[in-house]
């Protein structure tokens, strides 16, 4: 049996009992899911015996004017099909539920999205930064991010316009 994205969306919205919107003209089929329905949707997509979207490819974040989008890419080996789920979050500390217990592979992806965009994943068992230093301040991929001048006495912004106004000395031999 073949499934189109419309079939999957209809099945999912019947299960969640809410209307889901599809993003038109997306190269990969993309369903927009409200944050409070994310866990139910992920659970259904993973364990539905006709779909088996059990492979989590990627979780990534996007900052748009007026909020953040978290894009979760799933893959079904049964349908040989890729599917994107988009969740929207707003605010200075945007929060969406974590799906680490449904997809264990989401662990580091969620930590990376948190590290880069400051999006909280409610229910993540190990909610720390993953790439930047543990006591790094700010979230580097946000549009209003300004890198620090120094981090623990190490000069960071040496050549950026608006960076160091004082000259930084190289360690002499």
């Amino acid at each position, binding site marked *: 049996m073949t499934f189109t994205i419309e079939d999957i969306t209809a099945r999912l919205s019947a299960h969640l009992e809410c209307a889901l919107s599809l993003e038109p003209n997306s190269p990969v089929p993309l369903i927009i899911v409200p944050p409070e329905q994310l866990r139910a949707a992920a659970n259904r997509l993973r364990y539905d015996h006709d779909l088996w979207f059990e492979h989590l490819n990627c979780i990534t974040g996007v900052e748009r004017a007026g909020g953040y989008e978290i894009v979760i890419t799933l893959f079904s080996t049964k349908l040989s099909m890729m599917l994107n789920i988009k969740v929207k979050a707003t605010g200075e500390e945007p929060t969406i539920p974590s799906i680490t217990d449904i997809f264990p592979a989401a662990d580091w992806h969620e930590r990376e999205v948190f590290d880069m965009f400051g999006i909280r994943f409610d229910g993540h068992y190990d909610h720390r930064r993953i*790439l*930047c*230093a543990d006591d790094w301040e700010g979230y580097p991929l946000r549009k209003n991010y300004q890198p620090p001048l120094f981090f623990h006495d*190490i*000069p*960071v912004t*040496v*050549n*950026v316009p608006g960076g160091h106004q004082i000259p930084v000395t*190289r360690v002499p031999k």
Partner: protein
Amino acid sequence: MGIIEGRYGPNVVITSVDKVFNWSRSRSLWPITFGLACCAIEMMATSASRFDLDRLGIFFRPTPRQSDVMLVSGTVTVKMAERIKRLYEQMAEPKWVISMGSCANSGGPYWEYGYHVVKGVDLIIPVDVYIPGCPPRPEALIDAFLQLREKIERETIAKKV
């Protein structure tokens, strides 16, 4: 060599001892096993059988206590910079540093907008030899070791270089 530092000129004892010391130091440069990015792949290739650093007396050591050379091979992130500094401080004197590739020299492609890259490892630790390239060929790395060897041969125990 704190006792004789700055007290003697190049007399017959000093120069003879220099010759032995510099010969032994420059012929057994032991770098610390330590790779940061793609330059480390070239470093591994250089130490493997095709280019074979062993024939120059260069053996990679697994601990800073036994190492003479620190080979900074790759992008130095701010998070790693603290570890590099600590490793450098753990190495016993005399010690030398080779900065390998554009990233370690100046930040490389992260020169302007890298928010988490140190713009040159010489902002943290002193560097003896810089190798240009992205990444440098194994021949360039061997050349850096030969240049470092020449540099060590000019050193003297009578004064701090």
